[in-house]
Each structure stands twice: as C-alpha cells, then as structure tokens.
C-alpha cells in the first residue's frame, strides 16, 4: 500500500482521539490529516486523492451529522462516523445519508480498518466514474449544435429517415451527422452511444413507437 495513494481525514474535537487514530492509521501505513472541528475541515486545503472522513458526531461547532448534510451537495469523500455514545436514531440517520459505517467508541481496530477500506474503495470508484463522465461531457461539448440535436434522436432509436424528417434535413445529411456524432463521442456502436447518452443524462425525447404513430 502506498501512502500517497489515499488519505484519511479525521475530524474529532478530542486531541487524544485524533492522535490515537493518526497513530493507528500510520501503523496501518495510511496517511491521515486531522482536524479539530468541522470548520477546520471545510476550510482546509485537501489533496485530490481517494479519501474518506472519520467524523466524530459531537463536534464543538456543528454536529457531525449536520456537517454530513452540509457537504452532501458536493463531491465529498465517504464518511465513517464515530461517536462516544451512539444512539439508534443518529446512526440510522447517518447511514441513510450515505455514511459508510457508524462506529461507537471505543471501536475495534478491525472494524475501523474495514470501514476505512470500504470507504476508500467506494471513493475510488466514484472518482473513476466521475472522471469517465467528465471525458464524456467534454466530448459532448465538442459536438456542433446540429449534432447535439441529432444525438437524442438517434439514441431514441429513430430511423435515419425519421430523424431527418424530424429535423427537416435530408437523410444523407443526417447520416453524415450521425457518423460524426459516433466518431466524436467515441462510440463503438449505437448501443455504446445509447449508454453514453444515458450516462450524460440526455433525455430521450422520442421513442420509436411514438415516432412511429406520428409517422
């Protein structure tokens, strides 16, 4: 395991806990960054690597659960909650909002490490998905306006003729547009293109069936 590969953020108001967790993670060969409060965490400069947060529920400024809600909007690392006295509503709420685990102090080494590993793997996955989507988005941005019109029609499953008619252009022209779209979006096949469109959340405006009825 390389230390640079991932990082663990520890947010706990108790310095002893931060210290102990840092030491434990270090003994596991993990890099850790510790923060005394939610504010410190938010304000800090963080490396852009796969990571997770070990978050104490009781924090001096804002509650750990509130912090979870606050950062939920952005791309944040998966959270492993730790708490001095866990109650069921809190843990339920945390898990519901996507926390990887909810550990009660004192927790065992194995549980913690398992949770961390899971969290980092999850983040790694999310990151690669985000990266892939980013590539697709960049590709989509390279399309011409006409090609962007053509794409939904094609992935909706319309025939070339139907699509051409829809756009009021010749079938040959549509054919060219479609080829360009396939090429630019690096789609090996129409199925591939449909999957990409799905990832890009391009709305499917026409179904062949409805299109058929109109024709």
């Amino acid at each position: 395991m390389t230390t640079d590969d991932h990082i663990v953020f520890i947010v706990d108001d108790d310095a002893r806990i931060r210290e102990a967790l840092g030491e434990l993670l270090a003994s596991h060969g993990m890099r850790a960054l510790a923060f005394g409060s939610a504010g410190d965490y938010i304000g800090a400069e963080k490396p852009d690597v796969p990571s997770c947060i070990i978050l104490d529920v009781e924090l001096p400024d804002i509650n750990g659960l509130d912090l979870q809600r606050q950062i939920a909007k952005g791309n944040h690392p998966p959270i492993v909650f730790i708490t001095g006295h866990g109650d069921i509503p809190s843990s339920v709420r945390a898990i519901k909002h996507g926390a990887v685990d909810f550990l009660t102090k004192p927790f065992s080494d194995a549980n913690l490490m398992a949770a961390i590993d899971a969290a980092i793997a999850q983040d790694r996955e999310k990151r690669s998905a985000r990266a892939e989507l980013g590539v697709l988005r960049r590709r989509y941005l390279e399309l011409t306006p006409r090609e962007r019109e053509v794409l939904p029609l094609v992935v909706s499953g319309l025939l070339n003729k139907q699509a051409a008619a829809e756009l009021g252009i010749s079938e040959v022209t549509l054919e060219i547009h479609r080829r360009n779209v396939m090429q630019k979006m690096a789609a090996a096949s129409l199925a591939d293109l449909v999957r990409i469109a799905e990832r890009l959340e391009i709305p499917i405006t026409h179904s062949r069936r409805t299109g058929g009825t109109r024709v």
Partner: protein
Amino acid sequence: MMSVWSRRPHFLHLGLFTAAYVLGCGFAQALAIVPGTGISIWPPSGLFMATLILASRHSWPWWVLGGCLAELFSNALWFHNPLSVALLIYTGNVLEAVAGAWLVTWACRRPFRLETLQEVLTLVVLGAGIAPVASATVGSATLAWFGMQTFAAAWPLFWLGDATGVLIVAPLALAVLQNCGGRTQLSAARWMEACVLGLIFLGVAALSLSGHLPSAYIVMPPLLWAAVRFEFKGAAVALTLLALITVVFTISGTSQFVGDPEFQKQMQFALQLFLAISAFSVLTVAAVSRQHQQALLTLRDSERELSQLVDMVPSHVWRLTPDGEPTFFNKRMIDFLGLDVADLDKRGMSRLEAVIETIHPDEAIGFGDALRRSLATGENFALRYRLRRADGVYHWMSSRAEPMRDQNGRIVQWYGLCHDIDDQMHAEEALRRSERELQQLVDALPVHVWSWTPDGKLAYVNKRSLEELGLSGANFEGSTMVAQKLVHPEDAPEVLRTSANCLKAGDAFMMRYRRRCKDGSYRWMEGRCEPLRDQDGTIVHWYQVSIDIDDQMHAEEALRRSERQLQQMIDAVPVRIWSVRPTGGPIYFNKRYQDHFRAVIPNFDALGEPRIETLLQELIHPEDASEVQCTLRNCFDTGGGSAMRFRWREKDGAYRWAECRVEPRRDQDGVIAEWYGVSLDIDHEVRAQEALRERERELSLLVEMVPSHLWRVSPEGETTFANKHMADYFGLDVEDKPRMEAVFNTMFHPDEVDEVWDVFARCLRTGEPFSMTYRLRRHDGVYRWMSGRAEPMRDESGRIVQWFGLCHDIDNQVRAEEALRRASERLARATQAASLAELSASIGHEVNQPLAAIVANSQACHRWLSAEPPNVERAKITAERITRDANSAADVVSRIRALFRQTTNAKSSENINRVISEVCRLMADEIAAKDIRVETNLEPDLPPVALDCVQVQQVLVNLIRNGIEAMEAVVEGARALQIRSSRDDLHAIRVEVRDTGTGFKDADRVFEPFFTTKQHGMGMGLAICRSIIESHGGSLWTANDEARGATVAFTLPLATNGGSATMS
C-alpha cells in the same frame, strides 16, 4: 622796417595831419606880407611838434613823411622855391620838430599834458626857444647858400616865426589832439561867460589891431581872462583867433603892423613879437590858473577824505569849546546818540548838560565833575562811563579829551575821542568773575595748592593749605618748613630727595607720603608738582597739589587684598577659569588651567599668546574637538553664551569628561568686552549619568518588555505613562496623547465601564489600592479579561504623587475557569434536570473518549510491535499515550466524583426549606405531567445549614424523581409524594422524601453503584446521592414503609464546624 610798418599811425590821422600841415603852410603864406622876407609865422612847426610829442617815437617816420609831402605840396602851391631849397628847409623843420618833441618829453618825463607851469615853461623854453634854432639855422643857411637872403637877416625872422608858430599852434594842437576823444561839459553859466568873453575879445582885438586903439597890446586883458577862466583851451582858442584876426587885418592892411615897405621888416618883427608875447603870457597865465585849480581840487579832495576819516573812524570824535560846549560830533557819534550837536540846543538846557543827560545816571555826576575840572585846569580828560544809545541801551565808553592851545598857550578847542568798550567791559567783568570763581575754586578744593617760583620761592599757597598747616595768609613763606616737618619721618628723606632732584631736573614729580594731621594721626597724601613753561621752555612756575588719598590708599590696599584673595580663590577652586578677548586672544588662564596646559601641551610656555581654540584643540579629545571649535566660533560670532561637554586629556594621557561654559561680559554699550569661560571636570558625573542612563534604559526595557500592562496615572487621573505592551495592546503610539485619551475612554467593556470608573475614582479620592478584574478592549475590538491593580506612590508628607498600575491579561485563565464553571454548571444542570440515564450517558461520553483513544493507541502499539521489524520507537510513544489517556480517564472519573463531593468553598449557609421549595418549583411541570400530588411538610424556623445548594438540590431532584418513577406502576390509590423537613436533633436537620410507590425490593443493595431496578438507568443515582450527603457530613438511608412505598431520608449537620467535617 617791419616795426615801423606795424607801428604806422591811423591813415586818417596821417591824412588830417597832412591836410592841417598844408593849411598851416597856407596860413603862413597869407601872413608873409613882406615880400622877400619870407614867412612871419610858421604854424606847421607847432603842429609838427605837438604831433610828435603825442605820437610814439616809432611812428615818427610816418609823420615826417606826411609832413614832407604836405610841405612839398605847399611849396608847389605857394612858395615856389626850388625843390632842393624846399627839402633843405623841410629838413630844418624836421630837425626842429624832432628836437623839440624829444626835449620836451625828456624834460617832463611823463605824458605831456600841458597842465602845469613847468610844462608850459618847458614848451616855451625848449620847444619854442631852443628847437627853432635848428630850423632857423638850417633854413637861413639854405637861403643864404642859394643867395636869396643873407643868413643874418633871415635867421631872427626865421627863428621868431618858428617860435611863434610853436607858441600859438602847439598848445592848440595839443588841446585839440588831447581832447578830441573827451567832451568837457560846460555849465550854462560858463557857456554864457565864454560867449561874452568871445564878444569882448573879438571887439577889443578888432579895435586894437585895426589901429583904432593906440596899442595892439590892449587885447591882453581879455586874452588873459580867457586864459584864467578857461585855461589852456581858452588860451589856445583865443591865441588862434588872435593870430587869425591879426592875419586878417595885416593882410587887409588896416593893421598897425602894416607900414611902409622899409619898416615892413620891423613891423613884421613887431607882429611876430606881439604874437609871441601874447602867446607866452597867455600860456603862462593859463598854466598858473591851471595849477591853482588843480591845487584847489586836491585840497577839496583831501578835506573830504579827512572828513570821511573822522566820520568813519570807529570811535566817537567830538569837539568842545573851551567852555565845554560841544561844537562837533562825528557821524558815528551822531548815529550812536541819535542826535546832532544842533539837536542839543532844542532841549532848553546847555549843550553840555544835554550831553551829560545821555550818560548813565550812575556815572553822570562823575562825568560832569571830571569834565568841568579838566576844563578848568586844562588837564587831559579820561573817563569810562556808560552812554545811552539811541535805542536806550547803555554802552560802556572810554572817553579821552585833550585841549588844543594857540601859540600863547591859550586853550582854543577841546578835542575828544570816545570809543565803545562795552564788549571789553563785559569781557573784563566775566574775566574778573571767572578769576574770582577760580580763586574760590582753588581755595575750596580739598587739596593743597602751592606755587613756586623757579628759584624755589613760594609764590602762592591756597587757603585750605594755610588753614590746615595753621598758618595765616600773611606769612606763608615759612610753610615749607612747616610742611616738611609734618611729613612722616619714614617718608621725609625720600620726599626731600625726590623734590630736590625734580626741581633740579625740571621734571614733574609725583609722590605719596604720610603727613601728620592736627589730631596727630598720619594720613596718606599724594603730592604732584609740575612746572609751567613759556614758549622757550624755561620754567616760569612750579605748581604743586597735595591730595589726601588716605581713604583711597586704604581702599587700594583693601582692593589689593581682596584681589589677592580673589586670585588665590580663583587659583584654588577646582575649576579651570579663563577669559579671552572678543577677538579670541587670551587674557587670562587661572593657575590650575595653566598647570593643566603645561602638563598636556609640551611647548605651552613657548606659545606666547595662544588662541583659546588652539589650546582647546590640543587639549580636547579629537572626536569632540571639531564640535567644541564650532560651538566656540558660533559663540564668538553670535555673542551668545554656551555650554559644551567634551573630553580633555589629563597628565597621564587619559581623557576625562569636562564641561565648559562660556559667557560674554558686555560693557555699558552692550559691546562684548571679554569672554569668560569656566571648565570643570565632570568625569564622575558623566560616567554616573551614563551608568544611570544605562540602568534607566534597562529599566525602561524591562518596563516595556514585561508581559503586562504598566501604567502611571497622575493624582488627577490623567495617564502619564503606558508601556509598550499596553500601547501595542491598544494599537496606539505612546506619544499620541489625544488618541490615547480617546482609547482610554472606550477601553472598558460596556458592562463594567461604569463600575470600573467608579471604583477607580474612589481609589483616586481615598488613596486605597485599586484592584479589579475587568475586560479591556484590544485594538482589534476583542475584549480580554484583565486583572488590574494600582497603588499610589506617596511623597514624604504622605501626599499621593503618582499612581502606578499593573494590568495583566488573565483572559485565558478566566476563560478556562469560565469553561470549567460552565461545564460544571452544565453537568449540574444536566443532573438537575435530566434523567440519570442522560447523566450516565454524559459521564459515559467523558469516559469513552479516553477509552477510545486508549483502544486505538493500544491497537496501534500492537501493530507497531508486530510489524516486521517492530517499530519500537512508535510503540513506545503509543504506549506512553495509553498511560496518559488512561490517567485522563481516571481523572474524568475522579472529576465526576469531585463534582458530587465538592469542597466547602462552594458551600453557603442556606435555609433547607427554601432549597426544597426551589426544587419543587423546578420539577413542577414533571410532577404535574405524572399526575402526582406533592405534599410538603416543612418545619418553620429551622436554622440555616451549610450546604452546596446545587448538590443538595441534585439529591432532592434524584430522590423526587425516584419517587415519581416508583409510583408510575401504581395504578390504584393516591399518587402522593411527601417531603418533610424537621429538626433531627440538636445538631442536625432531617429531610424525608416518602412515596407511595413500589418500595425498595432489595433495600440493602440500593446504594451499590450500578444497581438498578429500573429499565433505563445506570444505578448510580442513590450512590451519588449518598456520597453528596456524606460529603456534607450527613447520612442518607432508605426504608420501606409498612403499607406501601418507601422513604428516603437524609440528615444535614448544623453548621458548627463544617470545614473540618467535610475534609474527613
């Protein structure tokens, strides 16, 4: 030739001369009545001679030439002589004219005016008598040679003719030629006389010459009349007229001088004689008359001058008759008196009396007497008196008069002279006065004045001297001896010797000696003697002055003594004193300074008159020298004093600090006369000051660097100092007073500002030390807790001089305390209001934190140790942390225990009933919600108990809540909770909480920790309660009631000696 040409006469004059010459020739021809006898009268000779007399000799050739031309012309017209004859005759004429003119001018030796008898005689004798000899001789010889006439016959006639011509024509010509420029004005009377005379003359001449009268010489009276009255002009004119009339009658033949041809020659001669005699007589008379007139004129002039002299002489001149009557005053006297002799008559008194009246009344009688006496005796009169001037002012006059006597010695007149001596009198008066004053001065002077003749005889001794020597004015000759005896015996020989030497050498001398006074004491005198010399340097007089200088001598002695003392003092004082001239040259250095210079400057004595700058340059440390130089020069330039500090070299070569002060001394006009300087060694002071400064700097640094606020306030409350720490805290500049004021006005937290100021003001007023805790506003607006203290500093009289304050930041400490207090409160509140479950959860959290850390660390430690190779270092660290955290956990537990067993400090004396009521009120809602009735049975007038209010409340809350929970299961019957307070015994108070619940099933174990009968609970409640009560020195127990429910009771001891009880 050139000179002749340049001296040529006016050609008009030459022409006129030639024409007159020709006319004269014509006239002579007309008179040549006797055939063959030649000329009877030769007018040209007179003309020629007169012309040459008047003309300059250089022009004579011109006139000779003119005459030659005229004669030749006349010869051609009338004489018809051969040319040679004519020329020879003319030569004779020229000789005659030249000789005559030369002789006449030679004899008279002055411009010939024909005004005196001498001149007339000269003309007659030399001009008319001798000169014609030449012409007669030459002419007669010529005639004889050519055989015309015999020499003897021709010569007399020739001579007489020429002489007559000269006599008649020369005066006329001279008169005409001399008066041709000037116009003599004749009065009308003279004109009339001239006319009458002319008529008479013409009439007499006509009658006498025409033969009607017996003799031609009858014409002489009118002729002489003309000569007397009209002098030469009249004579000349009359003679000319006579000659003309004679010629006319001779030619016409009616003249007496016309006769028979044989007598013609005699007749001619008679005529010539007549004319010659007439001319001679007339000219002589005219000359006499002329001379007489001249004499008269001269007399008149001299008389006028004399009269002017008498009038103008600056004195009064007067004349008296022998009787004393004034007959003449000169003009000055008239002007002075404002009246003439004639005016004296108008007074109605004699002239003499009138004169006496003008004299000052003081002298009038004396004047009259003196004058009368002189008149009577004939003695000379001399008197001084005051005479009244016309304007009434009296002037001093000095008058003298002397008699004039005739041959018989009889007094004819008195002549007097009187001159103004007013100024002189005043001057004399002033002189007398000044002399008198001088005399008084000399006598009044407090000195002895003696004067000596050159041979050593006393000439004068002033009065004071005489008095003091006890001599009378009469015999001061002996004063020398007396004076010498009075001289102090010690001084006497010296005095004698010196004076003798000086008298011999003629030098002035001065000596001081003691002289005995009347009372026998000796006093110092100063004698000075100087000779007075005349122009030649011979000594005329010796003057000696002796002055009493005793006081002065004593003063001088005192002065010398004081000066010596001063000098000794100046030399003895341990400072260097010097003075210099305004130009910088030295005047004085005191001995100490000189010694200093000598020691330091090798060739100091050789320097002569060194300048102060040079000396200082040598003396002063090179670093200071330029500044000192500059300061000094600045002083000298501006005239202001100055003080400077510098290091100077000492004997041993070491430098010591010195201070020099310079001040100018000015004279009355404010001009700087001298510069004074004093230099003193201030090495110790400077070094002490340096040390002091260093110490001050350190102290200042200390004050600035001490991590507290230090400040100083005047008794009036004005901040006079704030250290840097404080200034930084407020973010202001120490120097910026106004802003400091503003900051100080807003520095306290609004919550405390009034209180702080009140306290501070009271402290300032009363002088009691100030000590407070308050918040201060930092420059960034943050308030921080400060502990401020201030104490006054008092002077000897106990008056407060300053307040010194210290203020240090206790914010962190306060906040820590605050946090702790809040945590305690929180916990207290939690235990007060929350269930025990929550309490235990809270405690659990506190304990779990370190436990979690311990677990994590121990796992890390385990991992470090089990790693390959084991990381012992890290393991050690983690192990240490485990220990630390475990201790921390133990601390938490003990803190929790401490929470329930607080020290007596927190205890206060409370009424237990009030605490119970409080708890009931606190739990009113909870109780109401459970539908439970609470009965309180509180014994009034219970003594107060020392207790921790919060803890006891906590116990009550716990007990009440336990009771409520115990009654939850009870369905039937009243749910009632009884709280009772009562006096247990003499030393304790007892509180009981009784419920009607299920009661304790296992009453023995209820106090064990973690024993619980409840579903939710940690089983800590009663254990904690018991520990709290026990910490108060009381006891808590439980008992089940017989019927149902349970009672929990506790006692609290009365406050007898609570402190020791709690500590057990």
